């Protein structure tokens, strides 16, 4: 039937999502009516081992974390390419295998390069 592109399967996923969302929000909102609430400064200050925080953690941070994030983006996208290939592997046979070997080889080349550059070693 044209027009009903969204399969009903996904509707139930959406329902569950909304249900979970509703549960989370309702539990906090409803509880708000029942909980006691006696805030004061010492209770509300951010935790730093019993001291007043010296500064907010809004500083620039070690570049290492970003490097990992970039590597992740590269590798995860490449992994995604493996999925459709894996699904239809049976149907494509030897040709697909050879092709994917080349792909994985390219992926490994980048991996070895990153390793050699020390991107995978956590150093300051």
């Amino acid at each position, binding site marked *: 039937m044209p027009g009903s592109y969204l*399969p009903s*399967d*996904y*509707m*139930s*996923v959406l*329902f*569950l*999502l909304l249900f*979970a*969302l509703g*549960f*989370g929000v309702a*539990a*906090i909102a409803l*509880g*708000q009516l*029942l*909980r*006691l*609430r*006696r805030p004061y400064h010492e*209770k*509300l*200050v*951010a*935790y*730093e*081992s019993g001291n007043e*925080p010296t500064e*907010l*953690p*809004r500083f620039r*941070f070690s570049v290492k*974390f970003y490097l*990992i*994030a970039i590597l*992740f983006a590269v*590798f*995860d996208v490449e*992994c*995604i390419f*493996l*999925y459709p290939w*894996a*699904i*239809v*592997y*049976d149907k494509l*046979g*030897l040709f697909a295998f050879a092709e*994917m*070997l080349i792909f*994985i080889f390219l992926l490994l080349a980048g*991996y070895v390069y990153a*390793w050699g550059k020390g991107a*995978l*070693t*956590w*150093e300051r």
Partner: protein
Amino acid sequence: MVIEILLTILLIVVVFSVIMLHVAYATYFERKVIGHMQVRMGPMRVGPHGLLQPIADGIKLFFKEDVFPETADKPTFYAAPIICLVAALTSIAVIPFWEGMAISDINIGLLFILAMSSLAGWGVVLAGWASNSKYAFLGGLRASAQIISYEIAMGLSIVGVMMMAGSLNMSEIVKAQAQSPFGIYAIPQVLGFFVFLVAMLAETNRTPFDMPECESELVAGYCTEYAGFRFALFFLGEYVGMIVMASVGTICFLGGWTGPFEVPFFPIIWFMLKVYFLIFFFYWVRATLPRYRYDQIMALGWKVLIPLALGNVILTGIMKTFVWH
């Protein structure tokens, strides 16, 4: 149509309640298992053998004061625990508990679960950032780097399963598995299973990979500033995440709902046994191992698990093309 929708909602309510009950008693199970491994009894006071402990905990957390740090970033701080919980719970939708019994048996089930588990990591990162506390911030940063690193390993570890089953649909994977020579993929995919088990621990932030919340260094990590029911939402999210990961492991490697013989009237039994076996594995590891260091965790993920998983993909390809054909 209306009846169908109502039935779906009814199903969701039932599954949701059952899952919540399982989460509650997964905490009880954990405390009992770890307690007995540590020469103590675990909860004993509330109800017979402490059976009502999870309920008492829930009530306590519900009525606890909701402390909201002055410096926190309000909308993000509100959203983070809900993101965690919603992402974990939504994954439940595509898991088949027994033949034909899944809220939604979509074609890309496995991919959907991977996507949702990444979203749960996002909640942790946001929580660390929004709290505006250094311990939480460090926890959030660690979580971000760790979760994304192990996601690659996990994603690669199940490629072998996809190749063998030829599908991303969870039910199809189980059916294909039942027809395979060993009945479970854990044997031909032993390498993938190993990588999956390790990545599973890291993805759910469990010991020895509990970097984001290691209490001896970061106090409570990303949820340092969270109190009362907001904290409980993180907790629920983590345990639902564990159940989801254990279910994925069961479906992809341990044969899902199939068992050595059929149990009448109670088709979920094999699935549940396998899931609880994997959950027990989580607890067992927690009671045994010290925590890895951060750089060692990253090295393990990038330098050991990813090559292993890639090797597994190539090995599976070779075996499928030349040996099992």
